[in-house]
């Protein structure tokens, strides 16, 4: 049983991990600056924000929704955190509390409106994308808020550990997310709702609270992502994270999460995040011109998913 579970995981994640590995090898061969501790540490410290977003997004996609507001909510929580710390002198922890509250609440509003009133989450969260961005500008008065070292440590490697608290928290979020998804009633119901909401309803389960909670979780993750981003830039940037919703969704889809709901894995989404980040850093470190970078990025995204698809088909027929 145990054994077969391990081989099963290998089969499940093998394709994606192979893609990741190939990328690392290719970049290491093309640039002597890529495969070194500092680059890998840099990558590890760049992924937390997107990882948090992808964890929340995976759950949202699994219940059959979509959350376009994550970029804006990241910026909003970051703005709240920054303004409270820099302009009001609050401690990082109380500020973070408020920032998480704001993110979570906005997420719950997304969920309540889309689930409660039956409006596609695409539209509701598109609305929230605009609203939260506007609110971010109101909160920061459209100024970048520089905070400095009081928030920096969260994104800095721990002494003697190379990894930052932000990275460790993000990995924890992935593990907890995967556990919730596969081992709890909550997670099971999320998958069921995304698979066939009507069947869930006819089974006597009230699906609304679960679906709403998932959007709330996504909002909370935006709050954490806001912290990670703020600490990385030492600054709350009202302009930050524009378009990050597409990156988060891309990471999930690269990881095999279905946009139609009912299928997905948090760990795979995390690998998706790593693929995206390694690609970006790798291309930058080879120093190809920007326009070629974009072309290569596009091709790699498609090829990554293609390889994974071929692998899983091949896995099925044999």
């Amino acid at each position: 049983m145990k054994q077969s579970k391990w081989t099963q995981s290998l089969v499940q994640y093998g394709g994606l991990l192979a893609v990741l590995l190939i990328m690392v090898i290719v970049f290491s061969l093309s640039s002597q600056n890529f495969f070194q501790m500092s680059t890998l540490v840099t990558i590890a410290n760049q992924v937390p924000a997107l990882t948090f977003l992808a964890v929340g997004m995976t759950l949202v996609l699994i219940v059959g929704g979509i959350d376009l507001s994550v970029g804006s909510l990241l910026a909003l929580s970051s703005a709240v955190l920054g303004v409270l710390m820099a302009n009001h002198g609050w401690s990082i922890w109380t500020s973070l509390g408020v920032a998480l509250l704001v993110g979570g609440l906005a997420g719950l509003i997304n969920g309540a409106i889309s689930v409660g009133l039956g409006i596609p989450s695409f539209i509701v969260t598109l609305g929230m994308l605009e609203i939260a961005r506007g609110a971010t500008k109101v909160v920061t008065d459209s100024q970048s808020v520089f905070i400095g070292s009081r928030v920096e440590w969260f994104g800095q490697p721990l002494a003697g550990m190379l990894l930052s608290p932000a990275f460790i928290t993000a990995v924890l979020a992935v593990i907890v997310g995967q556990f919730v998804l596969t081992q709890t009633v909550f997670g099971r119901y999320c998958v069921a709702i995304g698979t066939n909401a009507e069947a869930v309803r006819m089974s006597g389960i009230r699906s609304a609270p679960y679906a709403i909670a998932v959007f709330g979780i996504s909002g909370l993750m935006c709050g954490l992502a806001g912290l990670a981003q703020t600490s990385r830039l030492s600054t709350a940037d009202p302009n930050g994270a524009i378009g990050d919703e597409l990156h988060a969704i891309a990471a999930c889809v690269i990881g095999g999460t279905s946009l139609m709901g009912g299928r997905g894995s948090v760990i795979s989404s995390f690998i998706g995040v790593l693929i995206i980040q390694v690609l970006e850093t790798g291309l930058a470190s080879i120093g190809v011109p920007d326009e070629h970078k974009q072309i290569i990025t596009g091709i790699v995204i498609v090829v990554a998913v293609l390889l994974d698809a071929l692998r899983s088909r091949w896995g099925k027929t044999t």
Partner: protein
Amino acid sequence: GCGPKSTSTDPAADGAPEKPRVALIMKSLANEFFSTMAKGAEQHQAEHSDQYTLVVNGIKDERDLSRQVSLVEEMVASGVDAIVIAPADSKALVPALRRAKQAGIVVINIDNQLDQDILQQEDVVIPFVGPDNLAGAKKVGDHLAKALEGSSNKVAILEGIRTSFNAQQRLLGFQAAMDEAGITIVDSQSAEWEMSKANTIASSMLSEHPDIAAILAANDSMALGAVAAVKTAGRSGEVKIVGFDNITAIQTAIREGKVLATADQHGDQLAVFGIEAALQEIKGEPVSENVETPVDLVTSQTLSTP
């Protein structure tokens, strides 16, 4: 006024002595530079509320130039008397502004200068009010060059959006300063005026060229992105950074020694100069074709002596 627009040079022609409406059209209001500009304009209007009314509009990011053209058209349609604009693209806005002028509206160009060839080709004259970006960038570059004396002579540049004239000018200014000082530019990429993009690009520049001694950013948002990249690479203090704009966040960074210098192009006054020029032209007084506004070097010394 809803009626057909006569050339507004003669206010009496409209009958009632209506206050002129001035539209300020900027780029991304998410960039502090422009929100400062907007505030300056609004304050000016509050102080001169008897003289004109103001409509302020911006676009969602620096690149949304189609929306900016729409704004020009919409302002023309709603019958404003003057448009003061910081164009997102030096060429693409010209025809829309020409049409505005043909509709009898006063047009003043601020911040980012329109392309001279195209203006000629389209046969329009639009006065420009703004700084000499090349000179400004050169000032910042020269200051950096002095500070670099004795250390490695390699630097990298983060450019603005390549389609805008001021981005091109600042690049030239940086290049001129480095050339004079005999410093090599080993890498130069566009981060499109944005902090996050600049952070990623700067990070990789640092790993590809571990020996660079400085990063020159064409605006402060990108400079802040570079600061974070340098810090992540564990090289705070070793790699010097300069920016452009003098936004509030950069001042803190300069005081903390994380950024060496920036250029103040007085964003809050820029729009005001433009509006004043517009009001002047509405009154029928001639406006000179080019009004150069000041650019000043900002360093920790200038900041400590207010």
